[in-house]
């Protein structure tokens, strides 16, 4: 009831005034007087003669005590008044002391003996009544408003409470899903960090343990070759089995029933043990994909109560694809590691150095040498690129040159060695980032062998030439010698013609000898081992060395007696030829070369000494190695000494370079001497 206290209302309200008394006329006079004096205050006057209780809700009570009033009744009536306003008592013509008791005890508002005073008192009473009434109204309003407030407050509280509850519930849900997401993230992280199948399976086992009654997972990993790799736990260990997809499908078809039951049967066959209730999860869509032979899948044996099953399913379904992805990543990583290892091993096993170089010739990768520096520096010890390098040359030109488009081969001479480099460009659209693969082959031996073959062929050709020459010469020689012989019979002995003819015949014979020697020396067919005499061999050999020996002083010191040994004559001739020829080549003009033969103990010793610079100590043994030469590349194959040594050693002898005090070189050939021819 929205009631406001304002001044207009005051006047609208009719205060209820009850006059209890004997005389009505007095009552009406009172009213008249009152209305005159207080026009503002409107009142509702009522008259009651008796002092009986009334139901009328008066606000102010005026009690008229007249001489006719029966006092006890009035007093009783007053006593019964419980209204808040104290009654006004108008005493007319009676002794007030009778009432004082009552007045005091009843605490009447006022006692008046005059109507005018009564009016004023009434006015006051009305005022105070009004105030009281207003207070009461206010109070009621306040109370009502209080109640409203209380209601509102309660509503608000309820709202707050219900909203709090809702909020709390939401927050709780958010917390729960955050926790779930955190768990999932943790799972992802752990599974992504797993380095092996074992590790990732262990992670899966740990997270699925939150559910009681769930056994460790069994993983069926489908690989490309039509096999399942089956990983399963035995205690803390993880074991692996293999089963082909076709065998697996065969097992599945051995039994009938729901997929779960069929799978359970399969597992029991695979592991040769009874298998409990299972829940299985196939890689792929969340709920679908129940076909277990085309994808990888997980199986959990479990004793989950029915209520927990869907929760578990949910849990695993959220995680399964992450898990399978991680597993596949591991498998890929393993196979790529294997491939990388295979490549690295293969690359490292290539016997030739191989290097990938950038355009500035820096080594990016190699199987033999460290990367970083330039190839010509690291491999050949050079300060600048090899002259024939197709890559290096491009950086020397200012203008842009078209870069190498196809494989090129070039040769590098590095000291004693010859390298053949095959250079392959690695195609690239950006010229700056061009790379090349270089394969370096040491072709020193090959080149030397090729030269040797060429030399051999030359020698063979010369041999053939010599042979042909010899034969060509034999014919006319026959004529010369035989005719001279015949002429000798015709002329007189002692005449000058006779002696001239003898010279002609001798000359022809000498030619024969030379030709025979030449044929013997250059024959391609090595004859059988024969008994040979050394001095004879030396002399024959020297015939071929006349040109080489001409600029020098030659000293021949042959043994007094013939010395015999077993050998193929041409081979020994070749050795002696080689040694003497070397000696001559080592000397400047007017050197001295000596050839000496003697028997020492049971050996024939042949010494070839020259007055050249001698052989440096560092290479005294190396000179007998095949292909060793101090001549520049291509100018000699250096086979002479190594071959000579081989020939002599095959005959049971030795070829050495004994060190001596004097300068120059002395080569010593020793051969087993025959006691008798």
């Amino acid at each position, binding site marked *: 009831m929205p009631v406001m206290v304002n001044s207009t209302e005051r006047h609208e309200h009719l205060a209820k005034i009850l006059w209890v008394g004997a005389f009505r006329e007095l009552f009406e006079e009172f009213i008249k007087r009152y209305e005159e004096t207080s026009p503002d205050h409107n009142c509702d006057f009522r008259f009651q003669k008796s002092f009986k209780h009334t139901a009328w809700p008066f606000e102010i009570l005026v009690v008229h005590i007249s001489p006719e009033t029966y006092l006890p009744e009035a007093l009783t009536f007053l006593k019964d008044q419980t209204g808040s306003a104290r009654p006004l008592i108008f005493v007319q013509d009676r002794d007030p002391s009778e009432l004082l008791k009552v007045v005091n005890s009843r605490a009447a508002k006022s006692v008046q003996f005059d109507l005018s005073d009564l009016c004023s008192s009434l006015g006051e009473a009305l005022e105070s009544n009004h105030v009281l009434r207003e207070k009461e109204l206010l109070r009621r309003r306040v109370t009502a408003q209080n109640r409203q407030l209380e209601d509102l407050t309660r509503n608000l509280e309820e709202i707050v409470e219900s909203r709090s509850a809702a909020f709390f519930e939401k927050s709780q849900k958010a917390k729960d899903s955050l926790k779930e997401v955190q768990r999932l993230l943790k799972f992802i992280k752990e599974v992504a960090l797993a380095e092996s199948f074992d590790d990732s399976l262990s992670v899966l086992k740990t997270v699925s343990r939150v559910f009681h009654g769930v056994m460790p997972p069994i993983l069926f990993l489908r690989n490309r070759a039509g096999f399942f790799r089956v990983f399963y736990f035995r205690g803390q260990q993880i074991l692996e089995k293999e089963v082909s997809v076709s065998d697996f499908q065969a097992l599945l078809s051995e039994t009938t029933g729901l997929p779960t039951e069929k799978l359970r049967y399969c597992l029991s066959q695979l592991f040769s043990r009874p298998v409990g209730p299972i829940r299985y999860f196939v890689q792929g869509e969340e709920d679908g994909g129940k076909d277990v032979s085309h994808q990888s899948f997980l199986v959990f044996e479990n004793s989950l109560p029915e209520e927990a099953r869907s929760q578990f399913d949910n849990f695993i379904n959220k995680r399964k694809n992450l898990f399978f992805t991680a597993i596949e990543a591991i498998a890929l990583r393993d196979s790529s590691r294997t491939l990388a290892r295979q490549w690295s091993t293969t690359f490292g096993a290539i016997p030739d150095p191989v290097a990938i170089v950038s355009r500035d010739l820096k080594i990016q990768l190699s199987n033999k040498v460290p990367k970083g520096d330039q190839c010509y520096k690291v491999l050949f010890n050079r300060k600048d690129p090899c002259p024939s390098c197709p890559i290096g040359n491009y950086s020397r030109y200012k203008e842009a040159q078209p870069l190498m488009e196809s494989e090129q081969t070039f040769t590098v001479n590095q000291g004693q060695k010859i390298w053949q480099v095959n250079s392959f460009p690695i195609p690239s659209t950006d010229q700056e980032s061009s790379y090349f693969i270089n394969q370096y082959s040491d072709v020193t031996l090959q080149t030397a062998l090729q030269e040797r073959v060429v030399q051999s062929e030359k020698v063979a050709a010369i041999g053939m030439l010599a042979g042909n020459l010899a*034969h*060509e010469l*034999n*014919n*006319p*020689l*026959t*004529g*010369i*010698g*035989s*005719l001279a*012989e*015949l002429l000798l*019979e015709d002329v007189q002995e002692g005449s000058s013609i006779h002696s001239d003819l003898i010279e002609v015949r001798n000359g*022809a014979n000498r030619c*024969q000898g030379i030709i025979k020697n030449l*044929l013997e020396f250059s*024959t391609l*067919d090595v004859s059988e081992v024969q008994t040979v005499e050394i001095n004879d061999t030396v002399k024959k050999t020297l015939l071929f060395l006349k040109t080489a020996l001409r600029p020098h002083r030659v000293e021949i010191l042959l043994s007094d007696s013939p010395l015999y040994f077993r050998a193929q004559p041409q081979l020994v001739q070749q050795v002696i030829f080689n040694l003497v020829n070397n000696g001559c080549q080592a000397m400047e003009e007017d050197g001295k070369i000596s050839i000496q033969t003697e028997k020492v103990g049971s050996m024939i010793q042949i010494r070839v000494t020259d007055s050249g610079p001698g052989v440096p100590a560092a290479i005294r043994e190396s000179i007998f190695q095949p292909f060793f030469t101090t001549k520049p590349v291509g100018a000699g194959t250096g086979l002479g000494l190594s071959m000579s040594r081989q020939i002599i050693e095959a005959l049971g002898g030795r070829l050495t370079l004994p060190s001596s005090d004097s300068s120059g070189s002395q080569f010593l050939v020793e051969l087993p001497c025959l006691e008798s021819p």
Partner: protein
Amino acid sequence: MTVLIVDDEPLVRRALEKAFTRRQHEVVTAHDGDVGLVAWQGGQYDIVVLDVLMPGLTGPEILDAMAEKAEGSLNVLVSAYTGDYEQAPFHHQSVDSFFSKPFEDILALVDQCEKLWKEKFS
């Protein structure tokens, strides 16, 4: 005796002819294998001296061509070539002797031929 000399080298023919003539033999010469064969087929000879390598037919080829008729004479091969690979011709069934050029002593060669002829036909 009648001697047929087949050799492509004039000096060799001259020397052999002179040597045989000195020993009172009748000499006919031919300068290559084909001419030699014709000569041999057209005549009767006691001694036939054949060079191995010649233009036309070789010595052994001439012997093959003559077949049994070669048995009627002493057949001697001469050659400027020595060495193993030349040995094959010498084992020809009709070859009676072999001399390598240059001849050490040409007159001794003639003596040797006479001797061998006597051994073959007496």
